[in-house]
């Protein structure tokens, strides 16, 4: 009854207005938004004398962005489609950024100051392959400049002003791959060099204005050519042969081609292994990178090569930077321990060496981009953009890191939530976590200086930052409401970050690859992370910890590892290299005596390995083993299989290794159904009540089972994208399967529907989103499951008095009659991700979080997805909160949790409960991160920030005054009456 009253109250509350809406001045109070770009793969500097200095970058996340070179802030950013990888970027006319993407088939120009796309040209390339872009410097047909895009054996010249293809030359030679295009200064002729079937060298002279072929020459070569070449002057180039140990010096004078083969070991002593050519621009110097060194080689005379410089450690080499006619600069970066040595070499000679300390957790240098500036004394200064192993981006200048960006956070692959430390009595002990003692003292000194007005502006800034850190929202301790937590995320590069929910700052970060790399684990890659220990009662003194699971190699057979870190500090607690492979990690709802959660690691031979390994964990597991089941979805085969565990496994005789026994399988006919999506309930979801009371005092019992699996299959023809299947050859079948028995609880076919399917399962319902080809709109369907076997138990009085079988557990061993209710609605947008709000006790009504195609997160009240909605609800139904049925789900702009922000390339939404029942945390990630707290039924259990304490105070004062006044008045009146 209490629950019902509460629910009714909540409904009333939530009916009154939108459940989520904020005022504009509240932006940033509970939410934060971080923008990233991803791992940089190309960079072009734009450093003219006047105006803002910027660098334009393209990334592995298909983003192009313009960054402020002074601060590293994003000036503008665009995220291209997921199949639209950027191949190359360039600058043209000093004001356009050109991007070649989709394997050389799309060329776009962006306005450099504001990022507006100026034009887009589809180059109509029939055979997309390695294409390259060459921006011609000095062809001026009018005021235009041309950009050449070479693809295989064809060249297209595109005007930079409007993107029109000025000319197109198809060299129509089978097997021709153009490698290099250049134009000698003050000439109208373009030279294009290519290899034909990697055995012939071809040279073409083309008129730059018309594309007319002037001359061509080919020369068969006796050596197999590799793909890398480097142009060293206007009439010669260097290539490597396919064994990557011989240099080929190719000259093309007066239309003839000559070549010389020179073994690399003649020039570079102690050369062995495979060499690599670094692309350069003319000037007779080229760079060869070998496994052990970097060699700078100059061409002397006709066929002689001279080694002019050598860096003995193999490092990362930047592309060449032309300083003047004669000078070429390269940056060579080595990594040693936690410092990097940054070396600039001009014409092979060492010009500058800086040693720079870099945080441990950034790993090795992956790429470097060099840029120069002219100092006041006319000498050259250098700055470099460095991409690290953890995908972060650093700008280095004068031996210092000017700014750094944590762009690894653009590729989050998994996330869990952890608690912050408890605030201890006395308050000071918090320091343990927050700072070391020294820092703490320093902080107090700063504060003292501040109060004595002795502080410099820098100190002031530090004090302000400290204040910000110690405000209620950003404290490093647990709070009563559970608003402050750590979000622990894993990124593609294998780095783990802990983010504070208060402001999104990084509390700690660790790159795992160097920690894990060893002889027994050559190339570790982290797959997933889980909560390993969430202490509450028994082990409160222990720190919570996080389990990271990964593989030591690339294939699915390679050995796995477990890595456990402390979630307060990120410190490594334990590493285990496993002697078996990892196919899946199944967290169990059990914990051992030290509150470590039990996990089963399933290997690819279907053996289950129990972790942690301890006698009590084994005991706990064996006691519950008969009730443990595992299922496996084999998408490729279209089979779902269920397993039970048994003692003794097929490999080895460890006590912690268990075998599996197949119990059931559901086989989908491969000629008519393909699995496209599966979804299940969160294992830690809490459901408050199993009964649902209808308007007519009927009771419906929710079928709440943790073992419901939602599976969606589509017809084979409908597996492609929208636009590839006709309505009559597409269908979607939705299944609800019990994963213990394999029983199909419900099955429904949607004719004319296709994927992509996004589904979310919670309590006794599932909501899924798919495309309806007949109406050509997206649809969302809700299925609710009710337990019919208790349907006769309808007496509300019994329920109130507790004489009901509500507490009887739902078990998959019995086969209760179930009934389903279902309804479908249109939904306007494509969906990228879908999730449901979770609260601490499951009392608060649910909301569905939908990541839309516009990279926004929309909340939709579950009441809109209620199968009991009718077109004309009766008065009673209205009172209960049933919304009149409409064919489309409403999109209320105020219910976007991301308000006017976008989470670029949205991939996932996560909801986790706060301690306060009304409130839930929402964290969504893509290239950007967005976090906020929402209250699906408003904050009924706490006062909102909006609450006016002044008004309350005034009211109290007025009431007291009024009481006093009335008391005085009545006394006076009494006195008067007595005198009368």
């Amino acid at each position, binding site marked *: 009854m209490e629950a019902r009253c509460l629910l009714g109250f909540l409904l009333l509350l939530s009916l009154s207005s939108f459940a989520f809406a904020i005022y504009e001045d509240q932006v940033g109070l509970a939410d934060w938004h971080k923008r990233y770009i991803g791992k940089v793969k190309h960079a072009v500097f734009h450093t003219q004398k006047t105006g803002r200095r910027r660098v334009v970058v393209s990334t592995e996340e298909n983003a192009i962005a313009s960054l402020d070179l002074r601060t590293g802030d994003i000036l503008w950013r665009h995220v291209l489609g997921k199949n639209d990888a950027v191949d190359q970027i360039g600058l043209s006319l000093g004001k356009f950024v050109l991007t070649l993407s989709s394997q050389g088939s799309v060329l776009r120009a962006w306005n450099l100051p504001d990022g507006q796309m100026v034009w887009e040209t589809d180059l109509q390339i*029939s055979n997309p392959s390695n294409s390259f872009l060459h921006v011609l410097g000095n062809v001026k047909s009018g005021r235009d400049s041309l950009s050449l895009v070479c693809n295989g054996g064809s060249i297209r010249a595109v005007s930079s002003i409007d993107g029109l293809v000025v000319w197109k030359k198809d060299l129509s030679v089978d097997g021709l791959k153009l490698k290099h295009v250049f134009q000698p200064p003050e000439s109208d002729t373009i030279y294009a060099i290519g290899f034909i079937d990697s055995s012939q060298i071809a040279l073409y002279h083309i008129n730059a204005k018309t594309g007319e072929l002037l001359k061509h020459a080919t020369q068969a070569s006796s050596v197999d050519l590799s793909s890398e070449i480097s142009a060293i002057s206007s009439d010669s180039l260097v290539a490597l042969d396919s064994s990557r140990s011989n240099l080929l010096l190719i000259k093309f004078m007066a239309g003839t081609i000559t070549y010389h083969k020179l073994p690399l070991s003649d020039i570079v002593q102690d050369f062995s292994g495979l060499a690599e050519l670094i692309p350069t621009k003319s000037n007779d110097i080229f760079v060869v990178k070998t496994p052990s060194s970097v060699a700078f080689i100059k061409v002397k005379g006709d066929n002689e090569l001279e080694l002019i410089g050598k860096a003995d450690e193999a490092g990362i080499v930047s592309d060449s930077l032309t300083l003047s006619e004669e000078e070429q600069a390269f940056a060579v970066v080595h990594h040693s321990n936690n410092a990097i040595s940054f070396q600039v070499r001009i014409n092979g000679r060492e010009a500058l060496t800086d040693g720079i300390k870099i945080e441990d957790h950034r790993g090795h240098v992956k790429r470097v981009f060099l840029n120069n500036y002219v100092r006041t004394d006319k000498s050259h200064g250098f700055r470099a953009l460095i991409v690290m192993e953890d995908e972060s981006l650093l700008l280095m200048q004068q031996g210092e890191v000017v700014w750094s960006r944590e762009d690894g956070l653009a590729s989050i692959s998994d996330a869990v939530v952890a608690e912050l430390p408890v605030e201890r009595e006395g308050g000071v002990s918090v320091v343990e976590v927050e700072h070391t003692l020294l820092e703490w003292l320093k902080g107090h000194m700063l504060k003292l200086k501040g109060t004595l007005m002795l502080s410099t502006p820098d100190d002031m800034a530090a004090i302000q930052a400290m204040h910000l850190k110690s405000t209620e929202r950003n404290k490093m301790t647990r709070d009563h409401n559970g608003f402050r937590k750590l979000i622990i995320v894993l990124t593609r590069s294998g780095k783990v970050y802990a983010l504070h929910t208060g402001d999104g700052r990084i509390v700690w970060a660790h790159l795992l690859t160097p920690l894990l790399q060893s002889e027994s684990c050559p190339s570790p890659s982290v797959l997933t992370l889980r909560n390993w220990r969430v202490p509450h009662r028994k082990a409160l003194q222990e720190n919570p910890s996080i389990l990271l699971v990964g593989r030591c190699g690339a294939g699915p057979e390679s050995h796995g590892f477990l890595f456990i870190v402390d979630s307060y500090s990120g410190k490594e607690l334990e590493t285990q290299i496993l002697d078996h492979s990892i196919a899946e990690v199944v967290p169990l709802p059990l914990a051992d005596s030290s509150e470590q959660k039990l996990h089963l690691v399933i290997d690819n031979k279907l053996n289950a390995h129990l972790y942690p390994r301890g006698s009590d964990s084994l005991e706990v597991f064996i006691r519950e083993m008969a009730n443990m089941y595992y299922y496996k979805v084999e998408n490729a085969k279209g089979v779902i299989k269920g397993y039970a565990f048994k003692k003794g496994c097929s490999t080895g005789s460890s006590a912690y290794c268990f075998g599996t026994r197949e119990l059931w399988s559901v086989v989908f006919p491969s000629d008519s159904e393909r699995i496209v999506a599966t979804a299940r309930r969160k294992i830690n979801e809490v459901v408050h009540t199993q009964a649902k009371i209808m308007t007519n005092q009927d009771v419906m019992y929710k079928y709440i089972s943790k073992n419901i699996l939602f599976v969606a299959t589509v017809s084979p023809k409908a597996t492609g994208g929208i636009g590839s299947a006709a309505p009559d050859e597409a269908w979607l079948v939705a299944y609800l399967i019990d994963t213990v028995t394999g029983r199909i609880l419900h099955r429904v076919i949607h004719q004319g529907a296709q994927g992509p399917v996004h589904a979310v399962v919670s309590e006794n319902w599932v909501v899924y989103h798919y495309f309806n080809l007949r109406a050509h709109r997206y649809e969302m369907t809700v299925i609710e499951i009710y337990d019919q076997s208790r349907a006769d138990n309808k007496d509300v009085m019994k329920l109130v008095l507790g004489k009901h079988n509500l507490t009887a557990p739902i078990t998959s061993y019995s086969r209760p009659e179930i009934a389903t209710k279902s309804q479908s609605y249109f939904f306007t947008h494509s969906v990228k991700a879908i999730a449901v709000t979770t609260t601490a006790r499951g009392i608060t009504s649910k909301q569905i979080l939908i990541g839309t195609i516009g990279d926004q997160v929309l909340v939709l009240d579950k009441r809109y997805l209620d199968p009991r909605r009718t077109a004309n609800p009766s008065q009673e139904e209205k009172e209960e909160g049933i919304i009149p049925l409409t064919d489309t789900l409403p999109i209320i702009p105020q219910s976007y949790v991301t308000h006017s922000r976008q989470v670029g390339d949205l991939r996932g939404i996560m909801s986790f409960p706060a301690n306060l029942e009304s409130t839930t945390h929402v964290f969504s990630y893509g290239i950007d991160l967005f976090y906020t707290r929402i209250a699906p039924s408003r904050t009924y259990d706490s006062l909102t920030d909006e609450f006016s304490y002044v008004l309350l105070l005034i009211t109290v004062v007025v009431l007291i005054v009024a009481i006093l006044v009335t008391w005085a008045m009545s006394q006076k009146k009494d006195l008067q009456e007595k005198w009368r």
Partner: protein
Amino acid sequence: MERSSALIGSIFLLISISCLINPILAAAPGTGEGYSIAGRVKLDNFVIQGFGHSPKLSEIKVILNGGQRTTFVRPDGYFSFHDVPAGTHLIEVSSIGYLFSPVRVDISARNPGKIQAALTENSRALNELVLEPMKDEQYYEIREPFSMLSLVKSPMGLMIGFMVLVMFVFPKMMDGVDPEEMRQAQEQMREHGIPSISNLVAGRS
């Protein structure tokens, strides 16, 4: 943004001539047989109402078939997709500040040159592929200007109001009652043991 009035969005249908280079590959499904869809996003009639986010054309994305391809609009609002196979497609516009209806675009395979477009939200057919927002989106609640009425309406305001009522109106009501009747009523009440408010207050003194 260029706002030339002569610009009218139109649907271009071009059979791409991309099968020149490699005829063997062009026969493969999906290449060389595509059509082009070109259209225009028009915001002219929508002036953003003062607050929130001021949208820019540079931030508008046009998305084909739920993410298969993404393109951006030019300064004049035009966009295009090339090499799209025949069939029925869906175009969505992603923009902050505006709600656009997705558009269904039919490219006829039998009848090249025939292309139809319709808004899916209200199934209105489009003669030309000009996409205009259905409405602008306000992401924030509009803060009501401070008013006495809202203060009075709040629970605390009601309490004060009631208090004032008790203070000033009740004594007046008492005054209107004949003193004789009043005394009678009070005595009656005392007999029945129901304490009156004035007695309660008086009893304390």
